[in-house]
């Protein structure tokens, strides 16, 4: 269970998270939707402890992230994996070394087991046998899949996805959605996906939360979100140019 309570975060004058609260149940797939630049990625980085909040708490399985010492924090991080928007693969390493990085650095497995785990992770994302390629030899979609393989190789309990379908063609996007669903079913992980791709959100989500102006303004099942009367959520999920979101922006111009 992940409990996010009254989270505040500002960068200079710009308030990104403004009293944001959200509870995420174990084993479920949560999708956080919102416009680009609304702070969705910042929220993910708070859950994994890369960013520290100005105030508020993030509690993962009863442990408050910002109260943990380095050792406990590292133990927790090996239970949470994050798939970055651009993949964030280490380009000085091969695909295999990228995927096995967490195991090599922290879990001290035998070479045989390491190679097996790398192969198993690659096959799970449908890319068997590309261990020896370098990230520069991969397409955008393949990079996202390899990043996913790196995330699952350490066998995490929570996977955070930052815009997993952004920047890839519709077919690759759908296969990534399928992958998120199948990994969720096979590995029984808790998943948090941030995206502005509504097709992806409806496909993978158990629950959807909408983020706007640093807060969660609506939360529910995909069906509840689709049937919402909330004007902001309605404008966003239907991709309308006119509505409260754009009117607010025009007021500032």
């Amino acid at each position, binding site marked *: 269970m992940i409990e996010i309570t009254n989270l505040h975060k500002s960068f200079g004058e710009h308030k990104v998270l403004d009293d944001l609260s959200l509870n995420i149940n174990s084993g479920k797939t949560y999708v956080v939707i919102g416009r680009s630049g609304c702070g969705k990625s910042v929220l993910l*980085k708070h859950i*994994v*402890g*890369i960013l520290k909040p100005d105030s508020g708490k993030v509690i993962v399985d009863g442990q408050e992230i910002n109260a943990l010492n*380095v050792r406990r*924090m*590292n*133990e927790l*991080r*090996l239970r*949470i*994996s*994050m798939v*970055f*928007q*651009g993949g*964030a*693969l*280490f*380009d*000085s390493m091969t695909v295999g070394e990228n995927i096995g*990085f*967490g195991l090599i*650095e*922290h879990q001290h497995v035998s070479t045989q087991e390491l190679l097996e785990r790398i192969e198993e992770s690659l096959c799970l994302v449908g890319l068997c046998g590309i261990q020896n390629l370098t990230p520069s030899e991969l397409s955008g979609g393949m990079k996202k899949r390899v990043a996913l393989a790196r995330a699952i190789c*350490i066998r995490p309990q929570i996977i955070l996805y930052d815009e997993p379908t952004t920047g890839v063609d519709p077919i690759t996007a759908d296969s990534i959605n399928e992958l998120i669903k199948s990994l969720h079913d096979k590995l029984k992980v808790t998943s948090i996906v941030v995206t502005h791709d509504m097709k992806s959100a409806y496909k993978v989500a158990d629950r959807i939360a909408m983020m706007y102006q640093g807060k969660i303004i609506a939360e529910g099942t995909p069906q509840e979100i689709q049937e919402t009367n909330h004007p902001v959520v309605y404008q966003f999920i239907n991709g309308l140019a006119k509505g409260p979101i754009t009117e607010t922006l025009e007021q500032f111009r």
Partner: protein
Amino acid sequence: MYFLGGLASLFFQTLYLTFVPPFKAERVFEEVKKTGYDSLPIVSLVALFIGFIFALQTAYFMQRIGSELYIASLVALSVVRELGPVLTALIVAGRVGAAITAELGSMQVTEQVDALETLATNPIKYLVVPRFLALILVLPLLTLYADIVGILGSYLICVYKLGISGSLYLRITFEALLYKDLFTGLFKTIFFGMIIAFVSCYEGFNVQGGAEGVGRATRHSVVKSFIMIILADCFFTALFYFIFP
């Protein structure tokens, strides 16, 4: 002040993490190769030609007063005490420091540094510590090598152009050099290595923006390293002048 504060914070964190396990010697060796071994061609070229140039420029005056033999002692002292350490440090700052900033900057921009953290790996421990250790180890060795090659360059000019006997040249060189000259020359390069390591890593970690930001950080890294190396050199020269008069 913000820059110096950030540099000091990186310095203390790196120093602390240097002594915290796990210790990965192979990463240090990898950096030693990139920093030291791969710098040998450029260091050799510059040191050899500085030896040539310095011998010829000194000969211009020494021949007028009939003291060509003193070229050997003048070159030996200048190269070992000053030119060897500073030129090597500036070459490494330009060649290695710029590469470190560009590499870490690109990693920062593409979220690879964040990815390291999510994989329970401290980016300072993983990226800065091996580079710091490699630079403080390699810079004195590269300087010693540059000193020898610089003196060799001057030797070649004096023996084959000015007609000074080779054995006499070497005898005058060794007579002129004292241990303290070698020590003061090499000691300060440890600090030059620290300057290059911390400035280049700090600038790399603090890249903002995309490719333009990486370019800007790389430029800042080289310029700041140059300035700090010259200031540190000035400080150590003054310090040693009073400690070892």
